[in-house]
């Protein structure tokens, strides 16, 4: 599917892929929400993400608010997706 997770201690890496449109985002949200303590840090690996919807943008923002700055980040987005976060004013969520 569009999500594969990998845990190392307090860090979980969510490898996301494909088109994260509204329908996919709705399906992913409960799965992401299930990742609870002891997880303190979350890395959304975006290297395979081709499209992101407003719904997924909101999921990212929610996680960022929950975990706090420095504990949630998006890594390796493709340039098109990096630009989406820039335009949305959410560049602080992106690492690299």
């Amino acid at each position: 599917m569009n999500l594969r997770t990998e845990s190392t201690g307090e860090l979980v890496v969510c490898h996301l892929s494909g088109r994260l449109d509204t329908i996919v985002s709705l399906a992913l949200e409960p799965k992401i929400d299930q990742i609870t303590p002891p997880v303190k840090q979350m890395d959304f690996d975006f290297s395979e993400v081709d499209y992101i919807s407003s719904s997924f943008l909101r999921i990212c923002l929610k996680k960022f608010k929950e975990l706090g700055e420095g504990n949630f980040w998006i890594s390796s987005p493709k340039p098109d997706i990096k630009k989406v976060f820039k335009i949305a004013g959410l560049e602080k969520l992106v690492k690299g």
Partner: protein
Amino acid sequence: MEENKKRDIDELLEKATFAAAIFNQYDQEQTDRIVRAVYKAGLNNRVRLAKMAAEETQMGKWEDKVKKNIVATQYVYENLKNQKTVGIISENEQTGIVEIAQPIGPILAVTPVTNPTSTTLFKILIALKSRNPIIISPHRRAANCSIEAARICYEAALSADAPEDCIQWISHGSREETQYLMQQEKLALILATGGAGLVHEAYSSGTPALGVGAGNVPVFIEKSADIPFAVDQLIRSKTFDNGTICASEQALVVEKEIAGMVKEEMKQQGAYFLNPEETEAVEKVAWSAGSQSMSPDIVGQPVGKIASMAGLHIPEGTTLLVAPLEKIGKEEPLSSEILAPILAFYEAADFDDAIRKCIDLNYHGGIGHTASIFSSDEEKIKKFSIMMNAGRIVVNMPSSQGAVGFMYNTLEPSLTLGCGTYGKNITTDNISARHLLNIQRITRRRMNERMVNLGFDIYFDEAADADKLEKEFNKNY
């Protein structure tokens, strides 16, 4: 303003900002699919929305509002459908310039009471075609029909996979909320249609704005014109939607030589010429001395209602009230813009006098907007046009339908008509999707041959003056 209201507006704008970000990923095909779905939904609802608008605002005629909705959807769509608005839109090998169209970001669209649903539909279509989210701030007296138009469009847009929140609206918003939104950093542009105060607020907000100016359209029936045709076109135009379009004729100027014939033809076509007492009575109901502008009570009202408000008895079948006047300016209220079936009428001694009167009318509150002439004399048409300060000079056509484009000419169909710098606008264009794009230019090396041939050494010689430099620069060119 209360904190919770500010929060609501901030949230609205945040959603629009997210929508702008998402929209940035769409290609031309996806964009066009959304525009097509929205135009179809608007066109399918043309009658219902027109009836809602007429009912809610108590202005105009629903049948004419249907026509305005057609302009705003079908004609606008036909104009937009083949336009490139995404990514690379032009490549010129010779100049080495490649143009890239980028969306501008969230747009605030302020829509008027006079053309509420058509302006809403129009602004939404041009915003979506340029991949920009839009927030509609409707006139409070037309909030329900405008919001319904926006809702229909949003539903259709989502069905074509548009970004969430690409169309939003301020429900029953106050002027204060709109002002607050105008000033926000995240807002990219204001498309302001409304009164002078509102447009001024938009321009003063610090956010780029495309506003409109007020109209005070002079129409000159020059003596070479086909008089019955000209009168027919003028009356159709001036009475369209009971005169709510800002490009509708406000004052007719004719040369003395043909004044009798024009009057006779107008009477035959249902115009009622007011005597001085009747003119005064109409002025009292049509003009608000306090605000020094037309009274909102008569805007878009049928001629019979205005006559009874003024206590006049007019013949059955009257189409238009005509006020013969001499003065132009503040001392003559009916020489100003009146968005109702009331027309000022001036007799001029000759062609030059007619032009002088048209200049005065044009500069009396209608600068930069539209001017109209009926004539078969090419030289006189040009002379008139150069003397006018108007973004559009419409020739031998109804002004209100002519200025909005597409139907009578090849102007771009638009419900936002730029009035140039004298109308405090940045452009005289009919506003369309192309004004809602940032055009980036990739430029490739194309060395300037004359500059290379001349070199720079000559410039260090102080004795080489401008004449010599110009000659050398263009040598053998």
